[in-house]
């Protein structure tokens, strides 16, 4: 098979697997800090129980993120040497700053955060939690800066066919960067709040009514209910930014084949790129013009302006719809759950049962969103600078195919194991309830072995 498409699938597989775990750790670090600060302020041990349940999820997610991240740092060289040859002068420093300012910080203080509770003072332990959470966020800052630069490059000039930095401020804060960063940080917050709410709902369904379950459940539900409207607004702003800087991506997202006014908002369709039309279309008249231009006669860019130079329509169109659809579902579920928790101090069983699978809704929306924006950048690797096809390395297709197959099997097995452990941890916490031993907090003797029971 063609090494290009295989390398693309391989990179997509690796980065899809990788992004699942930073999406959790970025926000979970801050949630853990919140649990810790609540404990410091109230002395209520239920906060610490919630902390110790979720710090395990953090540790496991962090390890998964690290090992899959190491893979990413090798991938550039093994499969895409053309990328660093062309834009290494820009990408290099951004990646280097990520390693220097974030990776070491997280890794060094993670040990203290996980295992150091009784070895350092409470204040240092809190500081370690702050530094780990801050490290994950700084890491997101740099990598989003680089990704956004690839989408909307700025602050550079081409010399002898190689990109050279001219203005680092313009490179880092390139046009799409603030929007993408906000969108991604909120996505992480939503992923974590639904994960916490979902696993707490599982505990609720097994009859667990412990204080630590309630605290985690409320934290998850109320955070989700607060973040989702902000995310919808931020996503809309991000879309308008894309319209300005990458109109061909918007045209593909809307499956709009012809530039013009009064463009409908397509709710459902099977875009057919060969015939350049939508099959089985269900649409709201003038909808897209209204959303994107705030006027029914607003002109929306169409794919006809970018013939041969626009992304594949089907995956971008559907990626966007899956993301938005999941977002709407998140709004409904989190607001109903918040209503019941506030007014009734309980959850109806069907809602709790819906919340359990919704624990993974953040992953689905995040992946769908990234697929939209990354496939939406094609055929460019760096918009207007480097095409994906020109960056692929001279590796035999059979090698790429073999390694891809093994990666896929490995990732599926690891995901099963990961989800199995999450459920196991939740059920164990549900069984122990408020009687689970509290390590260290009360200066108790050694308890809660790290290995097994």
């Amino acid at each position, binding site marked *: 098979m063609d090494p290009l498409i295989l390398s693309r699938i391989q990179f997509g597989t690796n980065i899809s697997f990788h992004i699942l775990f930073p999406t959790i750790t970025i926000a979970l670090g801050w949630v853990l800090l919140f649990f810790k600060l609540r404990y410091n302020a109230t002395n209520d041990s239920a906060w610490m129980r919630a902390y110790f349940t979720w710090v395990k999820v953090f540790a496991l997610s962090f*390890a998964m993120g690290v*090992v899959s991240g190491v893979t990413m740092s090798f991938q550039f060289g093994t499969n895409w040497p053309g990328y660093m040859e062309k834009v290494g002068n820009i990408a290099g420093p951004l990646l280097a700053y990520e390693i220097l300012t974030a990776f*070491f910080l997280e890794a060094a203080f993670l040990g203290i955060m996980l295992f150091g509770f009784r070895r350092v003072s409470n204040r240092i332990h809190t500081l370690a939690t702050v530094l780990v959470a801050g490290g994950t966020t700084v890491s997101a800052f740099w990598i989003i800066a680089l990704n956004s630069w690839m989408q909307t490059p700025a602050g550079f000039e081409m010399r002898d066919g190689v990109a050279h930095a001219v203005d680092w401020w313009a490179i880092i804060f390139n046009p799409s960067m603030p929007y993408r960063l906000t969108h991604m940080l909120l996505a992480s917050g939503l992923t974590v709040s639904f994960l916490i709410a979902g696993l707490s709902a599982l505990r609720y369904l097994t009859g667990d009514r412990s204080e630590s379950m309630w605290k985690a459940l409320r934290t998850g539900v109320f955070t989700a209910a607060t973040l989702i409207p902000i995310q919808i607004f931020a996503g809309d702003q991000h879309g308008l930014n894309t319209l300005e800087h990458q109109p061909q991506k918007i045209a593909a997202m809307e499956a709009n084949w012809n530039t013009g006014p009064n463009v409908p908002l397509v709710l459902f369709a099977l875009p057919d790129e060969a015939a350049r039309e939508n099959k089985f279309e269900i649409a709201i008249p003038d909808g897209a013009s209204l959303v994107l231009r705030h006027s029914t006669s607003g002109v929306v860019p169409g794919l006809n302006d970018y013939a041969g130079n626009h992304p594949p329509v089907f995956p971008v169109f559907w990626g966007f719809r899956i993301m938005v659809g999941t977002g709407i579902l998140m709004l409904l579920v989190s607001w109903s759950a918040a209503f019941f928790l506030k007014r009734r101090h309980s959850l109806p069983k069907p809602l709790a049962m819906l919340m359990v699978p919704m624990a993974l809704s953040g992953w689905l929306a995040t992946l769908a969103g990234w697929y939209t924006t990354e496939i939406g950048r094609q055929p460019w690797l760096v918009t207007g600078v480097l095409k994906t096809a020109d960056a692929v390395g001279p590796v035999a297709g059979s090698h790429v195919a073999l390694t891809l197959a093994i990666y896929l099997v490995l990732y599926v097995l690891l995901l099963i194991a990961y989800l199995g452990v999450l459920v196991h941890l939740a059920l164990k916490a549900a069984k122990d309830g408020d009687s689970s031993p509290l390590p260290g907090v009360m200066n108790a003797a050694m308890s809660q072995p790290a290995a097994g029971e």
Partner: protein
Amino acid sequence: MSFDWPTALPLIFAGLMGLAILIYVILDGFDLGIGILFAAAEDTEQDTMIAAIGPFWDANETWLVLAVGLLLVAFPLAHGVILTALYIPVFVLLLGLILRGVAFDFRAKVPTERKHRWNRIFFLGSIIASLAQGYMLGVYVLGLDVGLGGVAFGVLVAFCLAAAYAAMGAAWVIYKTEGELQRKAVRWLRTALVLTALGMAAVSLATPFASPRIFDKWFVWPEMLYLSPLPILSALLFLWLWRQTFHLPKPDDRHSLMPFLTLAAIFALGFAGLAWSFYPFVVPDRLTIWQAASAPESLAIILAGTVVVLPVIIFYSFYAYRVFGGKATDLTYD
């Protein structure tokens, strides 16, 4: 003479990259070594061995990310050439590192009956990663030649490096544990040391004959004289450490860190020898560090950050090691 930045920067970055690789090999060396020694340890010993590295392994592996990152950002051309040539070994290395890394966490969190499975995966991941690193080093020494001889040489170096890592792991266990496990680790160290010494001698003998360029570099007067302290000192350290293993552990646990430091010194000497052999090439016989380097202005901005941040990193890494200093106890989330 004025200071010439475009000439100096690639040199500085080659030095930084070498430092990152050396620190990685020493620090993750003992993590991987402990994983290899898992095969010879009892259940309860395994828990203690994990506790001896649990708080550190993640930061240790980050030095690999920094080393590859520096190769990527400072020498992008070399990064592409080396990693495409080593496509399959790199993949095997990553596979090993993934298995090793996740097993760390899974073995502590799965239901008890599945723990054994993850212990085995931890061993497998560690040995696979060690062998892959050794193989890559061997092939790299030969200038990325992957003929049959290159493969054989790669396999030789792979076993040498795995043995060396096992020795590091044993030395770390001696430092971090006490009682029966510590005495066991001394025996492990002795065995691994023999294999390491044999491997290192074999590699040292094979290298100049496998690569004519290195032969010329090693056996030219007077350079030979400057180079001679490296093998002599290494051999002396080996012998001394070998003798020490008959007196360890000492009363009051004196000198328990000594085997580890001695091994680290041997690693540093071996590494210096390699650096000497390759300079000024980053891809042997093909690309010098100046040919492969990024633009000076990009290197300068990375250097500025590195100069500020690296001392801080080293400071808080030492702090983390101090927090978890002393003998390893059961690792708990508290």
